C-alpha cells in the first residue's frame, strides 16, 4: 500500500548481437491490475520480464519506472535444494520473524505440512506453490510470472489458476503473467497484451466477471481474436475450436 506507483516502461530496446528483440517497447500497468502477456516463442517475453525483474541491466535510453518490491516466479521452481522449504521461502527476508512469515505464506499456498521438507521431495506442483509463496512473502507490488504453470499437468494447472487468483485478490500486487496458453490468459487476466516485433502489438481488455468459463460466448470470441493476433489463420482456429 505504501508504494502504488505504476509500472511504466518507455522506449525499451534490447539487442542480442544483430537480433533486436525489444524495439522501443512501451508498457504501462495499472497498480493492482492482472495482465497477461502473450507472444510467439522467441518474441521476447522472457527478455521483457527479466528487465522488469532487474536481472538484466536496463538500457540507459529506456525510461523504466517500477515499484520497489518486485518478485518473480519462473517456469521452474528454482528452489535451493539444500534449504528446507521454509528456509527457501524465508531466503533473504530481514528480521527475526522471517520464519513465521515464511510459514504463513506456505500455509496460504497449502503447504503447511511441508515446512520442513527438502525441495527434491516435493512434486512439481508443490514446488511451484512453494516458489509462489517465496514470491508472495515479500509482499511484492509487482509480481512477475514467467510461464509458471507450463510444466504442470492440466488438473494441477486448474488448481494453480484458482490459487493465483485468490492470492492476487488477497495481496493485490500488480501482476504480469507470461503464458503460451491463450485460455490461461483469458481465464486469469483483466488485460491481455500480445508482444510482436519487439512491441506491444495488441492490448485487449478482458471485461468478464470471474469465475470465467470456457463455454462463455465472450470467452470464445476473445480467444479467437487473440489467436488471430498471434498469427494463426482463421481455418486453423476453427479446426482447433
Amino acid at each position, binding site marked *: 500500500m505504501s508504494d502504488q506507483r505504476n509500472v511504466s516502461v518507455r522506449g525499451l530496446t534490447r539487442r542480442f548481437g544483430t537480433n533486436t528483440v525489444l524495439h522501443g517497447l512501451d508498457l504501462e500497468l495499472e497498480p493492482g491490475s492482472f495482465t497477461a502477456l502473450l507472444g510467439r516463442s522467441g518474441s521476447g517475453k522472457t527478455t521483457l520480464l527479466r528487465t522488469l525483474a532487474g*536481472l538484466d541491466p536496463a538500457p540507459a535510453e529506456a525510461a523504466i519506472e517500477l515499484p520497489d518490491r518486485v518478485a518473480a516466479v519462473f517456469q521452474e521452481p528454482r528452489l*535451493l535444494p539444500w534449504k528446507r522449504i521454509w528456509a527457501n521461502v524465508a531466503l533473504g527476508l530481514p528480521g527475526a520473524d522471517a520464519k513465521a512469515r515464511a510459514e504463513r505464506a506456505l500455509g496460504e499456498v497449502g503447504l503447511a505440512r511441508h515446512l520442513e521438507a527438502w525441495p*527434491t521431495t516435493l512434486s512439481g506442483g508443490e514446488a511451484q506453490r512453494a516458489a509462489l509463496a517465496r514470491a508472495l512473502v515479500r509482499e511484492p507490488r509487482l509480481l512477475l510470472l514467467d510461464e509458471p504453470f507450463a510444466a504442470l499437468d492440466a488438473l494441477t494447472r486448474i488448481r494453480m489458476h484458482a490459487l493465483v487468483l485468490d492470492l492476487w485478490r488477497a495481496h493485490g500486487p500488480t501482476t504480469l503473467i507470461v503464458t503460451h496458453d491463450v485460455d490461461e490468459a483469458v481465464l486469469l487476466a483483466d488485460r491481455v497484451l500480445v508482444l510482436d516485433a519487439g512491441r506491444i502489438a495488441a492490448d485487449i481488455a478482458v471485461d468478464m466477471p470471474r469465475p470465467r468459463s470456457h463455454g462463455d460466448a465472450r470467452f470464445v470470441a476473445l480467444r479467437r481474436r487473440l489467436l488471430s493476433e498471434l498469427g494463426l489463420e482463421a481455418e486453423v482456429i476453427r479446426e482447433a475450436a
Partner: protein
Amino acid sequence: MSDTHAIGARRALAPARLREVVRPSNGAGFGLSRYKRFASSIVILLLWQGASMAGLIAPRTLAAPTTIVATAWELILSGELPHNLFVSLGRVAAGLLIGVSSGVTLALIAGLSKRGEEIVDAPMQMLRTLPFLALVPLFILWFGIGEAPKIALVSLGSAFPVYLTLFAGIRGTDPKLMEAGRVFGLDRAGLIRHVVLPGALPSGLVGLRYALGSALLSLVIAEQINATAGIGFLINDARDFLRTDVIVVGLVVYALLGLLADALVRTVERRALAWRPNLIKG
C-alpha cells in the same frame, strides 16, 4: 539351506523352481553372500598359515599370520605402536590442516573472483601436472630431514584435490539459482553464502575424500625420509632387522587409517548433504 537350493536350481532350471530359489537368496541370502565374500580371504589366510608352519615360507620372507597377530599385540602392549601411530597421526593432522585450508582458501579466491582466477588458477593447473611426490628431493633441500618436509608433503598432497574440486564446484553453480537469489534480494555475500558455497559443497567433499587418500600416500612416502618415529619408521626399522611381522603390522595400520579416513568423510557427507535425494531418510 540356500546352498542346496542353489545347487538344485542349477541342476533343474524349471521356471517354477527358479522362482522359489530366487526369494531366499534375496532375503536371508544376503548374509550368506557376505560370508562368501570373506570365505576366499579366510582360505588364503589358512593356506598362508599352513605354508608358514610347513616351512614353505621363510619368516624373513613373510611371517605367519599368527606371528603377526602376536607381534601386533606385543607392539600395542609395549606402547611402541601407539606412540608411533600418534606421531604419524600428528603429521597427517598437521599436513591436512595446512593443505585443506590452503586448498579451500585458494579455491575461494579463484572461484569467487575473475582476478583471483587469473592469478591463482593458471599456476595451480600447471603445478597439478607435476607428480607432487617428485618434489621430495627439493623438500629435503628446503626443509631438511625433520618434521617439516613430511608435513609439507602431506599438505601439498591434500591441497590440490581440495582446490580442484572446490573450484570446479564453485564455477559449476547453477546460474538459474543465482538469478533466483538475486531476484529475492540477496547481495553478493548472501549469494555466496546461500547459493554458491552450499552448491559447491558436494564436490568439495569429494575433493576432501581424495585429499585424505592423497595425504595418506604422502605420509607413507614422507616417512621414508629419515624418520625417527612414526609408522614408517617402525616399518623401516623392522626392515633392518628382517622383522617381516612388524612390517605387516605397519601395513595393516596404514590400511586401517585409509578405511578410517573414508568412514570419516562419509559421516561428514551424511550430515552436511542431508538434502540430497539419495541421503534423505524415508
